[in-house]
């Protein structure tokens, strides 16, 4: 009997270890740039969710827009104003993922219209040899530079989030341990019952 169980276990260990792809819930990740939000949705083995239905809700729970992920699991939308938004992705067969983006994540991209109104008054000072950059222009430059620098870090964060949501060997082994424990416990209980 023991030999049978051991062989079955070996068979299973080899089957499962040989397939390192883990299936099967979906996750959604959000990337924010200005007022544009990009949704990435994947199954937990990395396959993108193609043609998944996307619903975006604002902080009052109102549905503000709907869409569909493309063949790469991507969907892009723009928001009317910074707010706490909830994004729900529905893949077929009852798979569902929810992701949230906070108001603070939206970097304000103010238009540089203010610059024009300053021109008349500052004409005198602009004849100075030292070319002075207006404050708004400076902010814009800093923002663009920061965006460029932060983009790879952003991508890395998304990658880490994706990894965290997938299944690890650790989880599998702990699960098997629990099963052993639960059925071992049951065996104990039943043995006592039989003893009496």
């Amino acid at each position, binding site marked *: 009997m023991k030999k049978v169980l051991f062989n*079955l*276990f070996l068979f299973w260990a080899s*089957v499962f270890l040989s397939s390192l792809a883990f*299936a*099967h819930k979906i996750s959604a990740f959000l990337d924010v740039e200005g007022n544009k939000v990009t949704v990435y949705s994947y199954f937990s083995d990395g396959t993108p969710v193609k043609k998944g239905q996307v619903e975006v809700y604002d902080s009052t729970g109102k549905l503000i827009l709907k869409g569909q992920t493309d063949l790469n699991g991507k969907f892009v939308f723009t928001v009317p104003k910074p707010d706490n938004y909830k994004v729900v992705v529905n893949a077929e067969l*009852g798979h569902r993922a929810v992701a949230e983006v906070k108001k603070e994540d939206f970097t304000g991209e103010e238009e540089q219209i203010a610059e024009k109104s300053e021109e008349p008054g500052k004409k005198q000072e602009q004849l100075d040899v030292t070319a002075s950059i207006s404050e708004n222009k400076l902010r814009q430059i800093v923002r663009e530079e920061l965006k460029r620098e932060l983009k790879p870090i952003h991508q890395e964060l998304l990658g880490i989030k994706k990894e965290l949501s997938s299944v690890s060997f650790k989880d599998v082994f702990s*699960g098997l341990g629990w*099963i052993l424990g639960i059925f071992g416990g049951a065996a104990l209980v039943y043995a006592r019952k039989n003893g009496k």
Partner: protein
Amino acid sequence: MHISEGVLPGWLLASGYAATACGVALGLKKLDHSRIPVAGLLSAVFFVASLVHVPVGVGSVHLILNGLAGIILGWIVFPVLLVGLFLQAVLFQFGGLTVLGVNTFNMAFPAVIAYYICKPLLKKQSKAYILIGSFLAAIIAIMGAGFLVAGELLATGESFKETAKLIVLLHIPVAAIEGVINFFILLFLKRVAPEILEEWK
């Protein structure tokens, strides 16, 4: 074929739990000391099976092996799958806890049906019967679960025909693979430890 959290309405979740509770109670009654090792092993097998995925068309589906568990365990498949699904929900966020009742029923009930239909076939000596029984169990258990899922997704407004068609199509390769797996394992068990394949009283 795990349904995720937040997809089904509350009344359906509650009914799922009620139905699963009945199945589990029946299963525990049939469980006895000598069958615990097999039950534990099949629970582990089921737990790990969902990690073996089969890429199919647009996405991917995974092995279930409820057919194998059902044909060996009968009603005991209810508590066995409950444990497996619970751990999958807690450790992999696969499925969910509110929808645990529904998912367990979806996968265990067709497995029990497979038991009643296919078990008699296992008593025969000819390998052909075991082959038929293996594939039949896989098909009944997997497609049965699929139809239950399609029926439940009706409550969310999905069309039953479309969903059922999709599930059946996506799981044909899974049923084929599981048929083969069942055949080899049942053949092996019949040769080495036929008492496991005896009918439960």
